[in-house]
């Protein structure tokens, strides 16, 4: 998809001003974290599993060439084909060629973020093939011609009223007076509309949560069952997956699976975890006749050995989005590309460049919740800081920011002056705000006070309070 990350500031403003989005994110920002916390409370080993998961991913990335070759060997041995793709264009071309080889007209799709990354739907449509998204959220946003706003809940920015309007506009063959206001009606209608598509599809395309080197299997994890209908009904199954999805063994996958659902939705296990290994076997009564894996680099190999290698551990669970005060305020579309939230703030600049995505690593208060909930302990704030350092070193930070930082640094290097100024500021603001206890507007801080009040200081700086307390102790 085309990036609008350079417009982040405007995108974020639009998001903040959208009342529907605020309501929708309010539900997401409380529900997901609460369910995750409950699931983790039920599993005493969760912290130890995080360390185990991190170790598995680190080991795999350190030997990624070995495991990719082993994986390819085992896919081939089970009758499948691996197609290596350096970039999005090669990946799109590989998928299109497979589709054309069977004269495909309708292609069903399970939810895949990497398919969004390579803009697969647009490419298929431009070549006369109809891609049908089958995940309910993906189906809704496909009808609305919108990109996903969340990596596991793509339509999280919508309330059911929007879905009702979308279905009424799209499903014109149905009775216009049918009741369609409640979630069960909406789900039933989507199910009924998509069932014929599942049955008609010539090719099914899914992503992969994991690729198993030991067996050449791909694993998808879903709740709806749409990914399964996508990969068993058509005569061709294509898996699109980026190369860091690989894990060595089934045992390693089991450990990561224990982390994934709990971190993502707070479920003990998602409804469906499915391993696909090659095409249908002789004697099988169903399943695809062909099994292809398009293995996509698109910038990953260049992250190895650098400051952002740890990002390749990411399981795409979305816990960092769900716990991020920035994401839950502005929504996923503000980030302007496929991956929003903290993981997107680190990954997007690595994949599409810091010139386009420079705002993203700056959109963080460094509160650290993202790292604290990451199932594989990715140091997201640290890596956002690396991006900021790079931007600064390359002279790409905005002039106001550079001048402000320089001024601050000049003062901060003179502790006596710094303490004086802070004390003076605390006293002045404390006195000015003594009645209301907060400010509606402040000079030079309009960016803060536009959307919320600034609490007034108590009248003393932390330094002077600390010094006083230390003196009292002696």
């Amino acid at each position: 998809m085309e990036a609008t990350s350079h417009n982040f500031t405007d995108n974020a403003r639009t998001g903040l001003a959208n009342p529907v989005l605020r309501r929708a994110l309010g539900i997401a920002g409380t529900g997901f974290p609460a369910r995750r916390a409950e699931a983790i409370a039920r599993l005493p080993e969760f912290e130890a599993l995080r360390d185990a998961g991190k170790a598995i991913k680190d080991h795999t990335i350190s030997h990624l060439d070995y495991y990719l070759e082993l994986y390819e060997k085992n896919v081939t041995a089970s009758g499948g084909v691996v197609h290596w793709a350096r970039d999005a264009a090669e990946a799109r071309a590989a998928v299109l060629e497979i589709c054309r080889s069977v004269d495909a007209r309708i292609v069903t799709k399970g939810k895949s973020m990497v398919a969004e990354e390579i803009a697969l739907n647009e490419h298929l449509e431009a070549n006369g093939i109809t891609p049908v998204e089958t995940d309910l959220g993906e189906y809704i946003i496909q009808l609305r011609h919108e990109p996903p706003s969340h990596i596991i809940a793509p339509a999280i920015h919508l309330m059911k009223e929007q879905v009702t309007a979308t279905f009424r506009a799209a499903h014109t063959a149905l009775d216009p007076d049918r009741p369609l206001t409640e979630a069960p009606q909406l789900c039933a209608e989507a199910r009924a509309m998509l069932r014929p598509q599942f049955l008609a599809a010539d090719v099914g395309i899914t992503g992969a949560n994991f690729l198993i080197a030991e067996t050449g299997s791909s694993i998808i994890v879903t709740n709806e069952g749409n990914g399964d209908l996508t990969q068993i009904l058509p005569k061709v199954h294509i898996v699109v997956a980026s190369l860091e999805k690989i894990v060595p063994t089934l045992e390693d996958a089991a450990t990561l699976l224990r982390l994934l659902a709990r971190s993502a939705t707070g479920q003990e296990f998602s409804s469906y975890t499915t391993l696909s290994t090659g095409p249908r076997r002789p004697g099988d009564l169903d399943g695809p006749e062909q099994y292809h894996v398009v293995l996509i680099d698109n910038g990953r190999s260049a992250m190895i050995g650098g400051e952002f290698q740890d990002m390749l551990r990411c399981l795409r669970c979305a816990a960092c989005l769900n716990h991020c005060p920035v994401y839950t305020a502005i929504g996923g579309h503000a980030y302007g590309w496929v991956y929003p939230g903290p993981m997107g703030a680190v990954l997007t600049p690595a994949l599409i460049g810091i010139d386009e995505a420079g705002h993203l690593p700056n959109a963080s208060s460094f509160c650290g919740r993202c790292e604290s909930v990451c199932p594989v302990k990715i140091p997201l704030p640290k890596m956002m800081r690396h991006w900021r350092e790079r931007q600064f070193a390359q002279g790409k930070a905005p002039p106001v920011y550079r001048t402000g930082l320089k001024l601050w640094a000049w003062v901060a290097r003179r502790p006596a002056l710094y303490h004086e100024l802070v004390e003076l500021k605390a006293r002045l603001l404390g006195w000015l705000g003594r009645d209301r206890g907060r400010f509606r507007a402040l000079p030079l801080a309009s960016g803060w006070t536009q959307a919320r009040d600034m609490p007034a200081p108590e009248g003393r700086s932390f330094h002077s309070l600390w010094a006083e307390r230390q003196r009292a102790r002696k």
Partner: protein
Amino acid sequence: MTARDDILGGIRRGLGRGALADGPTGELAARVAAHRRNLIPARAASLDPPGRVDLFVAMAEAVQATVTRIASDGEIPGEVARYLAAENLPAELAMAPDPRLDALPWADRPLLQIWRGKAEPGDAVSLTPCLAAVAETGTLMLVSGETTPTTLNFLPDTHIVVLRGGQVVASYEDGWDLLRARGGLPRTVNFITGPSRTGDIEQKIELGAHGPRRLHVILVDNAGES
């Protein structure tokens, strides 16, 4: 240079080394071959077999699967008929052409209309065996094969699974061992934990998104037999 060579070359440049020589490769091959288990939660691993069965039932019911426990295979047709009637479903089902299911006394239930094979678009109810069940999360484990088509697990609105108490294992890892003992992986392995669901509309869980709305487990739980 092919894309494959380019990508592998890029990875090796990043790792600061060439292709792995025999030594490390031997180590890595040994790591894979060892199938070493990582940390396994004590929740199920610490239980005896009856405890595992109870945990499976509790975990499956917590995710809206229903479970009926019966004492012998002979009671399966009756339980199927009872369940369909109780749920107001038609007395017809698509059944996996599995010899053990075939051998059940279906003649006792002449009103049940049964056909054997993969699922067809109109099928409302399916009946399948399973390979195992994982107590840890109330998860059924099903494999594709000549007598167990995968479409039965997803196309019908209602999926009924026959599980025997002796098939309940503690962990996914126990499931991997069962697969290896069968001589490798079939085309499809399904871990199924409750019926199909979605939370895509306002985060409210709705059952029956695309797969079965109902998942019913008939647990044949006579100690000793498996």
